[in-house]
């Protein structure tokens, strides 16, 4: 067999499948020039296909090895401090406007998610998992776990949000006549995190820098505001 038990029960399986699937996806994307498609999407489908086609392999067996890669999300989040410090000048010059913009974005985000989920009849688990959907994945997972959501479901929501953002953000903002780079960068970073921000790369360096700052600040403000705002929303709209 291609997947003998000795392989499946060793961390080698999860680590190798993750890295091979991801680099193969990167290769396919550069080979066929499918620009704009994050490698995470094809590689997720590949890993899922392996697990779904082999009923004898469980997700736990995969995660047994993949946890080593999953662990690095923590250090990667901490590493986001570097781009933040590199953009500190723009941040300082527009500090009060940026911070109030982020608070507006977070309040609008958490409230709109809560109201929409209630209107469309989402279950409490799904509602809580949707709350951090605009935050960059590692922080979103932490927030989701902290407020009682399902972190893996949050990841799915975060990724779908990012894909949607990467494809429509600039078109929507242009449609509404928004031209200021600081406004565009901040709104994109706050609504669709890193995936949406990747679409700013070929537009303007200022948009990219502001979006980077916005991702970090949205993470911080959502993790503070969401747990405080949720009980209030639950009282108003049970």
């Amino acid at each position, binding site marked *: 067999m291609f997947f003998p038990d000795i392989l499946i029960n060793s961390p080698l399986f999860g680590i190798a499948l993750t890295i091979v699937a991801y680099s193969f996806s990167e290769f396919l994307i550069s080979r066929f020039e499918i620009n704009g498609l994050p490698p995470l999407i094809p590689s997720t489908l590949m890993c899922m296909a392996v697990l779904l086609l082999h009923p004898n392999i469980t997700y736990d067996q995969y995660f047994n090895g993949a946890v080593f890669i999953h662990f690095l999300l923590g250090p990667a989040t901490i590493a986001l401090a570097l781009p933040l410090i590199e953009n500190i000048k723009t941040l300082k010059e527009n500090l009060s406007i940026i911070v109030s913009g982020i608070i507006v974005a977070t309040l609008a985000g958490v409230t709109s998610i809560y109201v929409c989920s209630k209107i469309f009849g989402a279950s409490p688990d799904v509602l809580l998992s949707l709350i951090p959907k605009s935050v960059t*994945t590692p922080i979103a997972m932490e927030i989701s776990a902290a407020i009682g959501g399902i972190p893996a479901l949050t990841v799915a929501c975060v990724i779908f949000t990012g894909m949607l953002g990467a494809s429509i953000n600039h078109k929507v903002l242009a449609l509404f006549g928004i031209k200021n780079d600081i406004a565009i960068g901040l709104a994109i970073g706050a609504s669709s995190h890193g995936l949406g921000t990747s679409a700013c790369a070929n537009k303007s360096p200022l948009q990219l820098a502001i979006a980077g700052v916005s991702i970090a600040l949205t993470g911080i403000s959502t993790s503070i505001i969401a747990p405080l705002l949720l009980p209030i929303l639950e009282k108003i709209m049970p």
Partner: protein
Amino acid sequence: MSPNLLLKGIAIILAIQWVSVTTLNMLGSKFPAPLLGMIVFSILLYTKVISKESVNSICLVLIEKMGMLFLPASVGIILYLQIIKDESIAIFATIIISSLVVLLTTAAFLEFALGRRNKKGGE
């Protein structure tokens, strides 16, 4: 991107994470530890306690390949396929509507705030 700097960089980042996790655990706080780590790291970089050179390589690697680090968690979706199927309308409608609300509210607020400040500056 020397091997020595990579090792030194990851040592610094792991040490910061260690301190963050321990501190939050002692306080019994639910605040995400990596986020506290990011704040602490920002302060240390800003005050030049840690030089940018010593962490530049590892940060570039971690940020550049961040997509791969999400993979184990996103494969975890297969454990929740049934919930996603059952509540697909609620999930996707919420994501689409809320994303547009956040995008437009924030952009409009920023345009208004920046416009007002520039007007003041011009007077």
